[in-house]
């Protein structure tokens, strides 16, 4: 740290300056911590993290996520203040010890923050997915929220690790394989659903036929009872045909007008 101390060559004055720096740092850290807490509360972060594992963990040690984050920012600034004060007072025995640590600190802070948000996002995603699946009473479905959570955590861990400079090439390959498999699986398994949804979007936007029209799709003729994104329900003589919308595009549709 090349600070110009020429006007203050006197060692006593350096100590005074160091103490001043230390106190300024402590005050600043405290203030920023408080402002941060207010800011997080104003942004409704406390409500957003409700029910996640971090919030529960924080609760167990008698704090909340918001106060933990606020305190963390304060402590980082305190640490910097102490280091700068030591530097100003030239109390460090060997400069070389501090510089790598100080230089490394920002990456560590960012890595921790990324991990933190990764865990939060993972928990949130898990809650969201399980909430959406709650009405689906298939026990096997409980795997899905977990899978979503750990996928988010995995990506967050990768970013955090790359931030602190750990070699993650092998993990990247794993991630690529995972995402690739997911895309191929989804594309193959939901091919018909996707084409139906694309046709359904057209049908809903343009409405070539509506509820009450008599239509023939393929060999099924009847009165349209319902059109949604995936299927068209056509009823004829007490029989209700549930026809996937991609049939409308594949086979065409005849609107019967008498």
């Amino acid at each position, binding site marked *: 740290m090349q600070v110009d101390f020429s006007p203050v060559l006197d060692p006593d004055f350096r100590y005074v300056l160091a103490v001043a720096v230390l106190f300024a740092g402590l005050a600043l850290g405290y203030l920023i911590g408080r402002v941060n807490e207010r800011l997080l509360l104003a942004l409704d972060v406390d409500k957003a993290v409700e029910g996640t594992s971090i919030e529960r963990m924080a609760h167990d040690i008698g704090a909340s996520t918001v106060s933990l984050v606020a305190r963390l920012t304060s402590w980082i600034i305190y640490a910097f203040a102490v280091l700068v004060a030591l530097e100003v007072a030239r109390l460090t025995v060997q400069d070389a010890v501090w510089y790598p640590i100080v230089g490394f600190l920002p990456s560590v802070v960012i890595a921790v923050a990324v991990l933190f948000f990764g865990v939060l996002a993972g928990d949130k995603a898990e809650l969201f997915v399980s909430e959406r699946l709650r009405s689906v009473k298939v026990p096997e479905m409980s795997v899905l929220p977990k899978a979503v959570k750990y996928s988010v955590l995995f990506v967050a861990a990768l970013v955090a690790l790359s931030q602190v400079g750990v070699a993650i090439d092998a993990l990247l390959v794993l991630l690529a394989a995972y995402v690739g498999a997911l895309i191929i699986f989804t594309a193959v398994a939901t091919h018909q659903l996707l084409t139906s949804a694309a046709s359904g979007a057209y049908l809903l936007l343009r409405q070539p036929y509506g*509820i*009450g029209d008599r239509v023939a799709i393929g060999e099924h003729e009847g009165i349209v*009872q319902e059109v949604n994104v995936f299927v068209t329900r056509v009823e004829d003589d007490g029989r209700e045909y549930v026809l996937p919308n991609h049939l409308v595009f594949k086979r065409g549709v005849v609107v019967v007008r008498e």
Partner: protein
Amino acid sequence: MARPPELLEDVLDGIDTLLVFSPSGAYYDRVKDVEGADVVVVATENSVGAETFVELPLAFDDVKERIRFGIEGALTEGAIEDGDELGCAAPLFGDDIDMVARTKVDESRHSGIYDLFANSRAEPGVIRDVFEVAIELGQKGQKGKPVGALFVVGDAGKVMNKSRPLSYNPFEKSHVHVGDPIVNVMLKEFSRLDGAFVISDSGKIVSAYRYLEPSAEGTDIPKGLGARHMAAGAITRDTTAVAIVLSESDGLVRAFKGGELVLELDPEEY
């Protein structure tokens, strides 16, 4: 000195059937072999594997409504009979059962509301939403004046073919469903003009301002009701739809199914 449970003894003394609302598995295990009374489970789904089970199509918030609905359901399914003494155990404040009540089955108060929700073509939630709109409309009216409205729910394709437009359809190319927040306002606004609202099985509002032209032959509705009720009765006889009518003259909400009046509600009581 009597312990609190003993004070409640006469509430459940001499009942024929115990209706248990949404019990947990452990609670049902305790209750199923109870002596001296049959047990009927009433819940949105039979998660405890009960022998006699009445399905609630909606999770009623009001316990009184829930119990009434449960009794109607049990009566329709033949689990209880007219004149039976009933005990009801239900959750009121929490998720666990925390209250008991006693009532008597009265066939004459059978309103057909269970059948209307459970055995209709349209989804129960859609019928409930339409009821809510009709009741709200009945309470407030349009700008303070009483207003009438006719909603035909379900079997929309057939209803559309048995009706014609009175004016341009404000819901053309729109995809709004009953229960969407903004829709109640729209329905209220459009109820000012004559004609029926047509709503599909899934709750999509297909059209407003429809003039229903079913064959009214053989439709038997109570004397004194007007053309709106006659049209409602007739359309439900001709199709598998349900019609919910808000009367302009007496302010009551009535539901028709299969050409018959099945339910009459006073919006002021809600």
